[in-house]
């Protein structure tokens, strides 16, 4: 006996898997918390559109894939193209990529490779720029090339203190700009560059305004909601993203006036750092916020690192602007790929102070070597500063939920105890 139903194609199966993962997280955001923001509906709908209904967002536009947030989006927007950040959080793509990468590699990179291996896109990038940041992304770019995608390497230095690095990176960015400009058949001009810097700068300023509300004693927005908002910047139309965030800001202002607090009275305030939570891999943030704690700030590339530092231009001439843009992506970056990274420690400590946090949770993907390695210096620094910190390793599989929850809960309870003892 055979059933008469048709069988899904591999792409249909992958789409269903993605939809199931996406809906699972979106439902958790909508349903698990006491006061979800109404203006988040824009983002729920956006994610459903892209990951459940698989509808394209950028028809008629040139999509530029970037392997890492280090590719200056200001230049992409200036040339009238759309950046699509290819960092991927789907377990189903991670599983596909696992067959193509070494066993112990980073799930995020495996997921990106798996995504390209299946060549199943709703907004397919016409060209991919791959900055030589971490080893795995650098080599993953080569794998994508083998699949027949157009991939251009953009040389990125691994030290940031020296003048040589700065000069090298500025040169790389110029090459990138020339290459993309040829690809697009469009010229980079003083005016389109200036407009683009200002536009991205405005988006960043919106992020900073969102963060200001998280410094309050009563916090009107959840950390997981923030991740969903900042993550949308990876692929959304920048103008609609900005107007959606403006609406969120209005609602937050209202909440501030009526003293809404999204967490409990005793909920510890957490700074989240480490490997980036990329939708729908919000496993750890959700565990934290479901365990009566609140993420008030983060130090990760899918959120804070992408928005924190502004381009500072001296002279609004084309070459000066390009150099200033380059500097933002190198000098301000706190990525652990750099040899020395005291900036990252300083930033974490500052976030803890500015946001009155009670502790830090440091999450590294198993296989994300640089974050795993930098754990030592960060933990030592936090100890010196007297800041409690929990280090956890996890991956994209849904299976370790129980053990991870217990560890996080125990840490949060210890933070609560500390608070009570102080009083």
């Amino acid at each position, binding site marked *: 006996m055979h*059933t008469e*139903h048709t069988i*899904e194609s*591999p792409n249909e*199966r992958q789409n*269903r898997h993605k*939809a199931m993962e996406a809906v699972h997280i979106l*439902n958790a955001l909508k349903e698990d918390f006491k006061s979800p923001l109404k203006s988040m509906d824009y983002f729920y709908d956006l994610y459903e559109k892209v990951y*459940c209904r698989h509808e394209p967002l950028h028809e008629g536009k040139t999509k530029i894939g970037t392997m890492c947030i280090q590719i200056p989006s200001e230049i992409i927007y200036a040339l009238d193209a759309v950046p699509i950040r290819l960092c991927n959080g789907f377990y189903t793509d991670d599983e596909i990529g696992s067959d193509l990468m070494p066993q112990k590699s980073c799930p995020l990179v495996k997921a990106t490779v798996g995504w390209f291996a299946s060549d199943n896109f709703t907004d397919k990038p016409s060209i991919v720029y791959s900055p030589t940041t971490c080893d795995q992304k650098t080599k993953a770019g080569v794998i994508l090339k083998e699949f027949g995608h157009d991939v251009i390497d953009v040389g990125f230095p691994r030290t940031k203190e020296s003048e040589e690095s700065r000069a090298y990176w500025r040169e790389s960015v110029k090459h990138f700009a020339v290459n993309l400009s040829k690809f697009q058949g469009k010229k980079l001009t003083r005016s389109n560059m200036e407009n683009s810097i200002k536009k991205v700068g405005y988006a960043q300023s919106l992020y900073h305004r969102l963060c200001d509300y998280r410094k309050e004693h009563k916090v009107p927005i959840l950390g997981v909601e923030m991740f969903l908002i900042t993550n949308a910047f990876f692929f959304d139309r920048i103008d609609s993203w900005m107007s959606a965030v403006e609406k969120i800001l209005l609602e937050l202002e209202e909440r501030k006036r009526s003293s809404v607090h999204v967490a409990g009275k005793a909920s510890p305030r957490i700074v989240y750092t480490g490997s980036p939570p990329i939708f729908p891999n919000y496993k750890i943030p959700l565990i934290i916020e479901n365990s009566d704690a609140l993420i008030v700030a983060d130090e990760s590339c899918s959120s804070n690192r992408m928005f924190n530092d502004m381009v500072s231009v001296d002279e609004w001439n084309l070459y000066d602007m390009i150099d200033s843009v380059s500097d933002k992506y190198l000098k301000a970056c706190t990525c652990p790929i750099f040899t020395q990274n005291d900036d990252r420690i300083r930033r974490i400590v500052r976030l803890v102070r500015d946001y009155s946090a009670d502790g830090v949770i440091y999450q590294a993907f198993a296989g994300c070597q640089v974050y795993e390695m930098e754990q030592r210096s960060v933990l030592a620094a936090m100890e010196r500063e007297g800041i409690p910190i929990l280090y956890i390793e996890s991956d994209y599989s849904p299976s370790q939920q129980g053990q991870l929850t217990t560890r996080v809960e125990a840490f949060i309870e210890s933070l609560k105890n500390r608070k009570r003892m102080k009083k």
Partner: protein
Amino acid sequence: MRYFVGIDIGSTAIKISVADENKNLVGHKISASGSMFYKYAQEALSELLKELNIESDQVIYTVATGYGRKLFKEADENISEITANAIGAQQAAKGVAQIKTIINIGGQDSKAISLDAEGNVVNFAMNDRCAAGTGKFLDVVAMNLEIGVDELESYHFKSVGTPLSISSTCAVFAESEIIGLLGNNHSVEDIVSGVHYSIAKRIVKLVKRVGVKEGVYFDGGPALNGGLVNAIENELGYKIFIPEYPQITTSYGAAVMACDAYLSESVS
């Protein structure tokens, strides 16, 4: 006429198959295992023989299999359910399909068996997490949703939304997840298809461990659930073979074994 009996004493049900000398299935019976395996098995066997008008002396050879096989002392021989399942599946699909992999979902466990070209068992794997993704799991789900187990199929195909995945592998935790989903007014249809896909993903992982090849045979009670069949087919990416009576494959395999045992003895 000579007859051969295969009796499979499982955690949830006792399955009995009777085969003739040509290894054709002439009758079968399924009854609940209950608390007294041995007594119920004896009763079920004598009832079945009566229905088929077979005298007990016409039964030449009896093979027992399943968890409770050692409790059935009248058996001439007993074999593991892995071997019995492999033999039964190939006999049931004979002339229709070439079976290379078997998925069996029972009351409290699930198995994946891979066969070589001659039909020998080369590898098998069993679930290692209690009742996760088994027949019992489906019972619990149906009970929570206040529908019958036999209704799961129609709910599955009526689902229009995204299947709602269940992340717990434990039947007890899954229960609270399902109650949570119901509390948030999600449709029963999407929950049912989500449960099916969650089980299907897990079972496909299990069969991948034994090296799945196209030519998959699916048996055990849950194979009656077309929704689960559809989910497994989608996860695998191809059609699978479902026998006419999915619950009795293993007991049928034991009956075929009984026949083979008799034939080889009478030859020698």
